[in-house]
């Protein structure tokens, strides 16, 4: 598996995490996403996310959430904002190492039956952390660690857990094309990501594996498919055994 990874060209456009690299400055990315689970009932969440490259070091996201996770009808749940600042880069043609700091804030109206603090539509809170991404010839690895703090959800719902530590480890590689000739070639990328959280002092933790496949058409339109499932699970949450379908369109060099 590792030998195979090393012969393929690695990619950093992780599906379940963000790399330390940013999107191009003055570019806008639009994401439509659907996530959900089938047990005990089929529930799904749709999100609209706008991403913008402010300059070469800073990018921002803003996201709106809609789901029937906590009631029978689809309902608008709230918003989140995310910023990532790349503060360290060593670039050469074949390898690079980059580090970035990120912060997220979410304002959500939902009850809180879960132990997981998730700023992706479930909790009002803040998150801050570091991400490092290393491209070694043809293998790209990325890891992150962050701290999450939950506040009272809109509607007066108190979180049972206020503090959480999240960590991720991601690897990706290019399946097609074997050799680039033009921008119109469809890229197919495969990813394997480990997603973990632990609530300190509570004995609550989980570690998920999230394989993903990604298609990039015309170098601007991206389709992500992923499914996450626990390796270990001692936390009540929505995110176990969850599928993800994402469409992303990129508008490069918008404002000049």
């Amino acid at each position, binding site marked *: 598996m590792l030998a195979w990874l090393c012969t393929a060209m690695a990619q*950093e*456009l992780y599906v379940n995490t963000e790399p330390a690299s940013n999107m191009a400055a003055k570019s806008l990315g639009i994401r439509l996403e659907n996530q959900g689970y089938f047990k005990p009932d089929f529930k799904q969440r749709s999100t609209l996310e706008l991403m913008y490259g402010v300059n*070469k070091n800073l990018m921002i996201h803003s996201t709106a959430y809609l789901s029937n996770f906590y009631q029978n009808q689809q309902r608008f749940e709230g918003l989140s904002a995310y910023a990532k600042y790349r503060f360290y880069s060593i670039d*050469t043609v074949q390898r690079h190492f980059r580090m970035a700091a990120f912060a997220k804030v979410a304002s959500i109206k939902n009850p809180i039956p879960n132990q997981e603090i998730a700023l992706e539509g479930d909790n009002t809170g803040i998150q801050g952390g570091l991400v490092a991404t290393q491209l070694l010839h043809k293998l790209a690895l990325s890891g992150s660690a962050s701290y999450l703090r939950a506040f009272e959800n809109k509607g007066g719902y108190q979180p049972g857990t206020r503090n959480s530590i999240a960590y991720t480890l991601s690897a990706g590689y290019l399946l097609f094309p074997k050799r680039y000739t033009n*921008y119109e070639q469809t890229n197919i990328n495969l990813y394997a990501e480990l997603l973990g959280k632990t609530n300190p002092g509570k004995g609550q933790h989980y570690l998920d594996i999230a394989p993903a496949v990604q298609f990039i058409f015309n170098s601007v339109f991206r389709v992500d498919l992923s499914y996450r499932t626990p390796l270990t699970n001692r936390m009540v949450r929505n995110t176990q055994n969850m599928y993800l379908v994402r469409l992303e369109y*990129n508008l490069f060099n918008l404002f*000049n």
Partner: protein
Amino acid sequence: MKTIKILIAILASSISVAQAQFIKADLQVSGLTCSMCSKATEKSLRSLPFISDIKPDLNRNLFTITFKANSPVSLEQMSKKVQGAGFSINQLTATVNFDKLKLNNNTFSYAGDTYHLVNGNNKELDGTMPVTVVNKGFAAPAVVRKYAAPVVTASASGKTYKLVL
């Protein structure tokens, strides 16, 4: 009448003075990992008014850039576009038509900037030759360090570029 004659004389002399002309450039970018990144970089470069065409080599992260005939080329703006897209220039080799250019202390001027040939021998340059820029922001860090010695700035205004033949 006298002033017109002088004007004509000045015009004639300015035409006959040899001018360096930038024809094309091979620009290798580091930090690119996917065709999306390359496309964003190319689109950014294409917005520069002096670039007429770009041909990408996606396997080598290399852009072959053709310049417009009569537009002054700004290397600084090219570097800014690449960095703005989130990447860095690993190598920039420009093909320049020197047209019997006489060097002054191994330097020549072009579009307000000063170009210093680091390994020149002060001879007249003629014909089309590739030159590689070794300034910070235009070359790999190791190359920048190799040519880190400061050069004598001939003109106060504009940027001074270090070139290697």
